């Protein structure tokens, strides 16, 4: 009798062990998302109210100029950030893959920004791009007295400083992924192409780069995920300014939900961000998991 209870317990053990995590995920991830979703349909300001008011927060959100600036900035930042990181990352990976001396050291240098927090990166670049004492001063002292660089305080250009710092931080990571991809390519295929008399540029263009398609795919997913969540970098670099010219959705949400205490409005913007990320991630995870089952 005792033994069978112990047996039963033993059989349930895996489920029991997992239970706290499952509970936590259900509450802290899914429950919280539902809560935020619900609040986004209410007229909550400082404190949450729970009467359903329909979609008016979303209507207000998409009628809000600042929100559109944030979305437009995300489009600019996201596309440039992804494109430049991938282009540079691929270039550096291919160059590093040419039997380079001190490859390890060079790779380590390219990758160290990944270990820094975006706040540190932002602080460093804020200083580098300082309109009077930074790069501009450097160029002046080199003799280029006509050189001006005021992007940090120029509301037309401030979002591009975020691109500069973001690219600096993430390129090494993309390079590492491409390098791993390059090392995984079967040499036999390449040798066969060489025997057929194909030149190196042609081999890269027609064989190697196309076979890196999965790496392109995951890089784009990861980088767009980083871009949508970007918050720290903007805060440290420009604080969203001048004015709100370099706002991103993440800083927008923070400003309204926490500084201005407009809970419902902030929740609505958070839900839009959530929808955007899920639109990218869920199909990706689905294809990954399915791919594994077929393999």
């Amino acid at each position, binding site marked *: 009798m005792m033994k069978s209870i112990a047996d039963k317990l033993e059989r349930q*053990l895996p489920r029991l062990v997992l239970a706290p995590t499952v509970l936590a995920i259900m509450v*802290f991830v899914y429950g919280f*998302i539902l809560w935020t979703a619900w609040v986004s349909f209410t007229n909550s300001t400082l404190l949450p109210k729970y009467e359903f008011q329909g979609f008016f927060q979303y209507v207000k959100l998409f009628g809000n100029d600042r929100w559109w600036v944030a979305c437009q900035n995300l489009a600019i930042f996201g596309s440039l950030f992804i494109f430049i990181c991938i282009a540079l990352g691929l270039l550096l990976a291919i160059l590093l893959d040419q039997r380079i001396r001190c490859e390890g050291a060079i790779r380590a240098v390219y990758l160290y920004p990944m270990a820094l927090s975006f706040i540190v990166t932002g602080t460093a670049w804020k200083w580098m791009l300082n309109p009077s004492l930074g790069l501009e001063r450097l160029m002046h002292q080199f003799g280029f007295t006509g050189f001006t660089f005021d992007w940090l305080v120029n509301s037309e250009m401030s979002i591009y400083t975020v691109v500069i710092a973001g690219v600096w931080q993430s390129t090494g990571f993309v390079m590492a992924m491409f390098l791993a991809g390059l090392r995984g390519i079967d040499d036999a295929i390449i040798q066969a192409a060489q025997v057929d008399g194909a030149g190196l540029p042609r081999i890269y263009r027609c064989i190697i780069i196309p076979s890196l398609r999965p790496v392109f795919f995951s890089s784009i997913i990861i980088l767009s995920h980083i871009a949508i969540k970007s918050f720290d970098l903007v805060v440290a670099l420009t604080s969203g300014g001048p004015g709100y010219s370099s706002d991103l959705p993440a800083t927008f949400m923070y400003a309204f939900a926490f500084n201005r205490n407009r809970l419902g409005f902030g929740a609505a913007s958070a839900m839009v961000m959530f929808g955007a990320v899920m639109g990218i991630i869920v199909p990706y995870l689905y294809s990954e998991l399915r791919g594994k089952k077929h393999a």
Partner: protein
Amino acid sequence: MPDMSAGNQRLSISQTIGRWLIYAVLILFALYFLLPWIVMLLTSVKTMADIRTGNLISFPREFTLEAWKSAWSGACIGVKCGGIKAYFFNSVKMAVPAVAISTLIGAVNGYVFSKWRFRGSEMIFSLLLIGCFIPFQVILLPMARTLGNLGLAQSLSGLILVHVVYGVAFTTLFFRNFYVGIPTELVNAARIDGAGFFRIFFRIMLPVSKPIFVVCIIWQTTQIWNDFLFGVVFSSGDTQPVTVALNNLVNTSTGVKRYNVDMAAAIIAAFPTLLVYIVAGKYFVRGLTAGAVKG
């Protein structure tokens, strides 16, 4: 890489030029990645007078550690003028337990998901996986309220809880993917011999888990140490982690800006994760690609 020179020992002139070009580009990019770090170091050991007359990469005319001293224990952050020392230790007090707890939970979870699958466990795993990717803006508001209700608002314990909850998805993923590669026959044989759930975990799984523990701990340490969003939302004043304090130091402009102090503080804030990267870079990269690519 494709080896074009196989067979002929002598490189043609164009190939030699090509090699030099590759090295030139690689070194140029290495300088680009190193530049902000060099500038930070140089700026942090200059006097303010030196900064105003020199430029970003000019050598300090007078080497001084005043800025470092001030950043560590004298600079004013908010109303307090004790430097970032206290905040640095806040980060330590937050990161150590959060990393330890989330890693241990992840290890056991990963063990269940890989070796004790039950009906629905794959489904749970997918639900957990999505938790890795949600934009945290969508849980900030309810989390702030929950921490308030638990009496953990603006406390280090609250921050630890948040980091554990949202870190477990990642740590579980790491361990699950690692344990999948360990032969299940080993586990089955032990089961036939009468070994139970925990006995197998401690005797068979844990002894081979060292590499994944290293990867996981490094990943979590970097994530938690570098976090800004949770820090800025869930802490205030005395309980702020170092990233938040650094940002406050740099971005609150009362009195004269002391760029040398800003840079010294940024280096101090970056130091632990950078050290981890230098000491265990190999594992760091492995974590990045494992966490990201195999998402």
